């Protein structure tokens, strides 16, 4: 049995920021990550991190943009925290060494982003996530924090609503081990890979979210899935919103700047849900290029500016599409990008189970509501990652000893469950996972309607039944990819079920959840958060009120 006061699961931005806070407060903290720290998907974030550090800007203005962007589903008390703490967190990253791009006067540069009334997105070229991730990693090395590198957590142990630790597998040798903790922090990121077309890293399967769900913790607002408007056609690698922030245009095949028909005032810088729907509509109505894409044109920005501020996406286009955006437009289409929903947690990252925290994309705090603004996710990770660290440090000082029995029992039953997965005569994970991705892509996408959503729920149920006879044929102990993927597949099915069912039941259109059979937002019936609990029959849905303080819901136009 491995013992630490606190273990942070996940090595992306929110997890690292949380671990640093705990360490600085003198807590015995360790990190468990299924990939080496710097391989986390946070490193792929391009465009930037929002903070109202400009002299004419204010946290109130940032908060208003965030709430309006969320289509009024965000909790305004947590949004207030997000926006008030933003400048401190960004300046802290600068002090720790992040190589932010600079203005002429040497201060941190800021660029316009979608849905924002002020250019408040601080950036490091178009590699902002990479820069912040490496800065935090350097900070972890400096602190000498223990890292369990390449371990997959397979089960949380929660007894009487209190988290006692978890079972994890060392991917190096497939051995299971149990961790005893006073507090556990989930910082495991999103689930993009349950869709065919996603900007997410291949590792993003949402397994951490399902760990909490399986342990009885509710998932919140999972039907709100962000589709990024501009992903590179073919591979769906992200092409940053910064490309439009710096002045890029979107054109259909008739060379029309079609955004004039959808958001005549904000044009290309409308929020992501609106731009994604606009592009999808152009595709669906035959005004896109064959194969289903539109053009993102930045050629008029000139080579120097592109190299200086968008060098990363230029290289991506050259390497992955054989196109130089200095010379020709980029073919783009919408793709799954981010999860607004996640493990239900509060302003300190605390979930309903004592000693269990959730931060970053795996959590729903809820600062993004029904649609996240670009530049707010990196901010979310460092603000609430730190806050969870502060809270957990305090929490663990007041705890007494607990029995080890539930932990050893969990280890034994997990060992049995995994050995039962080994064999030659059952379903293989890859065919189930391919079918899951297909049904989510086709039926729970940018535009949704009842029949398709019902089909998705039915499909997922059938796949869940098939997954019960899933077998792993590979017996090798070291980095057994087949075993890893088979374990994670069941989590992917859990999340798909919750997302599809939540989307089917929510009969309105709000933010990224757009129902072609219920076109309007319905505040009377649906200004509320979805909570999904696991039952033997599947998800049970409950609802809770949205926290509204300053900004009363208004019609959302751009």
């Amino acid at each position, binding site marked *: 049995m491995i013992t630490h006061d606190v273990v942070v699961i996940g090595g992306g931005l929110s997890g690292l920021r949380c671990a640093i806070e705990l360490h600085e407060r003198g807590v015995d903290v360790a990190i468990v990550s299924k990939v080496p720290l710097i391989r986390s998907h946070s490193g792929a974030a391009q465009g930037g991190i929002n903070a109202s550090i400009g002299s004419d800007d204010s946290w109130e203005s940032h908060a208003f943009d965030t709430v309006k962007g969320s289509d009024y589903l965000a909790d305004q008390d947590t949004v207030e925290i997000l926006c008030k703490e933003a400048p401190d967190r960004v300046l802290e990253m600068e002090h720790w060494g992040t190589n932010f791009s600079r203005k002429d006067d040497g201060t941190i540069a800021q660029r316009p982003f979608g849905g924002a009334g002020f250019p408040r997105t601080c950036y490091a070229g178009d590699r902002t996530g990479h*820069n912040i991730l490496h800065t935090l990693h*350097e900070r972890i090395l400096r602190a000498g924090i223990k890292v369990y590198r390449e371990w997959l957590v397979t089960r949380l142990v929660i007894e009487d609503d209190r988290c006692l630790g978890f079972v994890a597998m060392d991917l190096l040798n497939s051995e299971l081990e149990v961790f005893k903790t006073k507090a556990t922090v989930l910082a495991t990121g999103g689930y993009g890979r349950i869709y065919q077309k996603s900007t997410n890293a291949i590792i993003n399967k949402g397994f951490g979210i399902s760990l909490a769900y399986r342990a009885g913790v509710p998932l919140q607002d999972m039907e709100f899935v962000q589709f990024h408007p501009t992903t590179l056609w073919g591979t769906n690698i992200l092409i940053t919103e910064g490309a439009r922030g710096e002045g890029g245009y979107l054109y259909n095949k008739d060379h029309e700047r079609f955004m004039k028909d959808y958001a005549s005032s904000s044009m290309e810088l409308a929020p992501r849900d609106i731009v994604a729907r606009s592009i999808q509509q152009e595709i669906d109505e035959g005004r896109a290029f064959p194969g289903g894409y539109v053009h993102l044109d930045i050629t008029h920005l000139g080579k120097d500016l592109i190299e200086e501020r968008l060098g990363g996406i230029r290289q991506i286009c050259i390497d992955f*599409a054989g196109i130089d955006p200095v010379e020709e437009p980029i073919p783009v289409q919408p793709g799954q990008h981010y999860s607004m929903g996640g493990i239900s947690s509060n302003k300190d990252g605390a979930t309903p189970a004592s000693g269990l925290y959730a931060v970053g994309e795996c959590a729903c705090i809820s600062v993004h509501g029904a649609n996240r603004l670009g530049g707010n996710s990196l901010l979310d990770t460092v603000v609430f990652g730190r806050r969870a660290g502060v809270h957990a440090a305090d929490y663990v000082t007041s705890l007494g000893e607990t029995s080890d029995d539930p932990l050893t029992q969990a280890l034994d039953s997990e060992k049995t469950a995994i050995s039962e997965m080994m064999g030659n005569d059952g379903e293989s994970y890859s065919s189930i996972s391919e079918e899951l991705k297909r049904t989510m892509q086709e039926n729970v996408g940018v535009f949704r309607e009842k029949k398709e959503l019902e089909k998705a729920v039915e499909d997922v149920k059938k796949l869940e039944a098939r997954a019960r006879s899933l077998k792993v044929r590979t017996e090798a102990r070291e980095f057994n990819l087949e075993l890893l993927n088979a374990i994670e597949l069941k989590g992917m099915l859990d999340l798909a079920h919750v997302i599809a069912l939540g989307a089917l039941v929510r009969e309105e259109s709000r933010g990224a959840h757009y129902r072609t059979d219920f076109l309007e937002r319905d505040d009377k019936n649906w200004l509320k958060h979805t909570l999904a609990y696991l039952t033997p029959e599947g998800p049970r849905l409950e609802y809770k009120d949205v926290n509204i303080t300053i900004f009363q819901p208004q019609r959302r136009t751009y």
Partner: protein
Amino acid sequence: MIKLKIRRQDGENVWYDLFEVEDRPGMNLLEALFYVQEKLDGSLTFRYSCRGAVCGSCGMLINRVPRLACKTQVSDLRKEPTNEGNPEVLITNKKTETDNDEILIEPLPNLDVIRDLVVDMDPFYSLLESVRPWLEMKNDIPEKENIMDQETQVKLEQYTNCILCAICHGSCPVAERDRKYYGPAALAKAWRFDLDPRENEENRKERLEIVDSESGVWGCDTVYKCVAVCPKKVAPTLGINELRNRIDTNKKKEE
């Protein structure tokens, strides 16, 4: 169809397997490896994460050139010889006029193999840690951000672009013969912090003392292989040369 000839290893057992993969336009080598792993042989193992050349997980030896699998297009590899039998780690490959339907895939050199294409990265990460790769900050931290001119920011950027993929390490002749050599990635990182105007003088000095050694900048053969293979254009050797100059200049000042 394209054939992947993959070096397999399980404990002491080493062998090569040949897999036929149905390729398609735009397919990169990482996707081809997944095709093998999911459809032909579930036991194959390799590292991956972002598939967009930003995470640095999938460095391997492709036709004897160390590269990121995700960033390498199968269609380009069709126009290359496999260089099978050549013991050298190459830095570029020739282009052929005719199609070559085979790709040779081996683990990243200079690190021990755990299984198949997965190598033990622990030594690489430990060497990195040796050079104190972090900023200590000065004592008078400003209330707002540190002011930094754009020129310095751009200079730093070349080195902060490093993704620690260890491809440079796999190409380095010094790393091959001296496992204590910090290596191009760690030394490039040392230069990145030396260059940073926000760095505390004491930490800068301590780091310079660490790299002022045969395990450090004086161990480098200055053959620029790391510069040639870096997928992010980081240029470690230039950083090593700068560190050498910095050390020499400081010594002259002391004299």
